[in-house]
């Protein structure tokens, strides 16, 4: 199972499937575009990681997934169950409608009764089967003495069916079997859309979690074994190879290396680590193998303590009520009171005609039709989140879109969010080709970000690495080798013997010649500029908050045109900053990826993190960017605003329609035909209004 965040077209599907099947050991491959993943059948010995690498190599970003995602099939089953109920309800609705039309067009007496009986025969079992989700949900709400949207829905369906049976038995003129069924059908459609959107989001979120494989190499007598991080105990010794994340908090026992702690602190440059230094879980070992003695594992690590901080900030945000819930809170009591009022009033007017009064009360319940209301929100969110998903954004929380629409201030983190977190070689043109090929030869074997940046830039120029012998990486210092009998070194200034420049740089020394410097800037993430410009165009204030040094932050802020920036911020400083903005009446969108951002992400009104972010950051974010680029951010803001407007329009449509329908029903003029027409018309209008989101630019 592979995750493919960037496939979106027919050519991509073909490219991925064909590409995969050319690989040895692959039996078949199938892309699912809706879920943006590929299912690959392979022989035993094929490494999924190799396939993901291969796909990334031919231009499709791909990640390996944990195939044991049992939850995914679980949600799948639920959505299919809903679809089944939907199909059955549709069948019943159409058949009963057919019979009802005959009644409306003038069937009378025995014929009408026959039609009503046939309708009852179809409708009752189908209502019992299809409307189950509403009944169970309403029942569980009632049991804890609460009202939700499903209570009036269930009541309307049950009363409509029950009263129709009564009327049929007494050869009554009006039966509402078709209304009971179409109510069920339209509402199930809304429910299904809602579920489908969430299932897609949930399965993708699970995939992200599955990306992180929490394993460690524990050193035991006579070798090492791979164990789950959860099984590590304090005092164990683990080995961390270059390029891997440190799984636990611990002290370095042996080895020297450099670690990248940008996730934890936002510092963009690696720091040196040797015996006796403390490392934290989440840092990335870069150059040399290290062994660590575990000081804290699992829940006690610094990483988890940070997560606890987040949990506190989260509870504050959970108080947000979505538009749908707000509408339901008003709607349910009003409708029930109206129906009850109608019943009482007609009982008094007619002097005790229970049958007529009940008839009218039911007509009120049916005609106020929660249909439009039940569809209003899911139809819009489905259309909008589908649109965002296509652009590579994943909405994790149901109300994220509404909250995103409120945003008027954006706070960015720097390292890993606005910037790639990886340096880019700046002065390639200043160096002689002879120097560059040597630098490339030295750099190509190292996992250090600066070395990789040099190798990347030099290869981009089409250079061929010089033939070096005795290449040796000195962890924490640099790389050295022999070239034409001369010693060549690439690394820290002190180590090669060069002046230290006041900026990010590495130094190359060839033989006795003076060292030359390679300088770097922090490369901006794709689309960072567009994102910032778009936010400004949308009328949002933009602030940059980073834990990095002032100079680096100022540079990035300048390049992106951000006037407001803060450097050297600690995690709680970031939270304070976000809270201060919130206190001044701003709705803050926080975009960040590091552990040092998580608390701020949770404190913000709504938050976004890139897929490359640490798991903790992604968990607290409402929206995850699946691709590399930040560019969809601007569009997300516009789409969410448009979507919220559509939701409100839909409520408007439903309200207008009710304003006309309720008096008619109250006066006792509503017929089953009128109810059917009104219900269908309002539902279709609401759906079409939502679909405008998909079509419009």
């Amino acid at each position, binding site marked *: 199972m592979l995750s493919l965040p960037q496939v979106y077209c027919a050519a991509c*599907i073909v490219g991925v499937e064909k590409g995969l099947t050319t690989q040895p050991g692959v039996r078949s491959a199938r892309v699912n575009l809706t879920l943006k993943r590929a299912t690959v059948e392979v022989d035993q010995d094929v490494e999924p990681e190799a396939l993901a690498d291969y796909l990334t190599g031919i231009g499709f970003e791909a990640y390996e997934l944990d195939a044991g995602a049992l939850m995914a099939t679980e949600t799948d089953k639920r959505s299919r169950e809903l679809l089944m109920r939907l*199909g059955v309800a549709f069948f019943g609705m159409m058949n009963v409608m057919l019979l009802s039309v005959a009644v409306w067009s003038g069937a009378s007496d025995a014929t009408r009764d026959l039609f009503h009986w046939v309708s009852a025969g179809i409708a009752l079992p189908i209502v019992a089967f299809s409307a189950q989700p509403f009944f169970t949900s309403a029942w569980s709400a009632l049991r804890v003495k609460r009202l939700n949207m499903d209570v009036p829905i269930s009541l309307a369906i049950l009363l409509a069916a029950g009263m129709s049976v009564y009327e049929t038995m007494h050869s009554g003129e009006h039966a509402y079997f078709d209304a009971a069924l179409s109510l069920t059908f339209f509402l199930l459609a809304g429910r299904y859309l809602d579920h489908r959107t969430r299932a897609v989001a949930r399965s993708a979120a699970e995939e992200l979690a599955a990306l992180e494989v929490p394993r460690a190499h524990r050193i035991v007598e006579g070798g090492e074994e791979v164990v789950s991080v959860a099984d590590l105990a304090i005092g164990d010794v683990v080995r961390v190879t270059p390029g891997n994340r440190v799984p636990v908090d611990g002290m370095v026992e042996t080895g020297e290396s450099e670690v990248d702690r940008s996730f934890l602190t936002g510092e963009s440059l690696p720091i040196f680590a040797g015996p006796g230094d403390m490392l934290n879980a989440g840092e990335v070992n870069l150059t040399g193998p290290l062994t660590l003695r575990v000081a804290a594992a699992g829940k006690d690590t610094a990483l988890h303590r940070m997560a606890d901080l987040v949990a506190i900030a989260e509870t504050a945000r959970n108080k947000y009520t979505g538009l749908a819930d707000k509408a339901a809170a008003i709607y349910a009591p009003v409708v029930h009171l109206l129906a009850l009022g109608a019943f009482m009033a007609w009982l008094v007017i007619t002097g005790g005609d229970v049958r007529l009064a009940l008839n009218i009360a039911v007509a009120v319940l049916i005609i106020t039709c929660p249909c439009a209301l039940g569809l209003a929100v899911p139809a819009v969110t489905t259309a909008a989140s589908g649109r965002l998903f296509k652009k590579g954004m994943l909405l994790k929380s149901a109300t994220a879109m509404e909250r995103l629409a409120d945003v008027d201030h954006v706070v960015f983190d720097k390292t890993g969010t606005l910037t790639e977190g990886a340096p880019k070689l700046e002065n390639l043109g200043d160096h002689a080709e002879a120097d560059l090929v040597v630098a490339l030869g030295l750099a190509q074997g190292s996992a250090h970000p600066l070395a990789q940046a040099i190798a990347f830039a030099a290869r981009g120029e089409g250079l061929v690495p010089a033939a070096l012998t005795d290449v040796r990486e000195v962890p924490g210092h640099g790389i050295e080798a022999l070239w034409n009998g001369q010693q060549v070194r690439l690394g820290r200034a002190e180590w090669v013997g060069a002046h230290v420049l006041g900026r990010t740089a590495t130094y190359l020394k060839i033989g006795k010649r003076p060292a030359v410097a390679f300088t770097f800037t922090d490369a901006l993430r794709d689309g960072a500029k567009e994102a910032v410009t778009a936010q400004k165009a949308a009328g949002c204030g933009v602030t940059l908050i980073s834990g990095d040094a002032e100079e680096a932050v100022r540079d990035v802020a300048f390049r992106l045109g951000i006037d407001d920036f803060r450097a050297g911020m600690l995690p709680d400083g970031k939270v304070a900053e976000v809270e201060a903005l919130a206190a001044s009446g701003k709705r803050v969108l926080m975009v960040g990826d590091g552990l040092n951002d998580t608390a701020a992400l949770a404190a913000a009104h709504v938050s976004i993190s890139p897929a490359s972010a640490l798991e903790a950051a992604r968990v607290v974010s409402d929206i995850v960017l699946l691709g590399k680029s930040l560019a969809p951010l601007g569009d997300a803001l516009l789409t969410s605003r448009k979507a919220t407007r559509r939701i409100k329009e839909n409520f408007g449509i439903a309200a207008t329609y009710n304003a006309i329908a309720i008096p008619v029903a109250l006066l006792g003029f509503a017929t089953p035909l009128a109810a059917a027409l009104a219900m269908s018309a309002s539902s279709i209008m609401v759906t079409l209004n939502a679909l405008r989101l998909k079509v419009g630019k």
Partner: protein
Amino acid sequence: MNVLVFLIPTSIFLGLLGLVFFLWTMRSRQYDDPAGDAQRILSGIYDDAPPED
């Protein structure tokens, strides 16, 4: 009105037929990837049969 004796069962039978077809499309997983199916029509590669898994 005796014709109803045939017509009502007929209409219900036809409806059931539709329902059975719907259940079949669902069981053969034809709603799992609507976006992908919409795109696949553009490629020149054809599936011999719906995927089975």
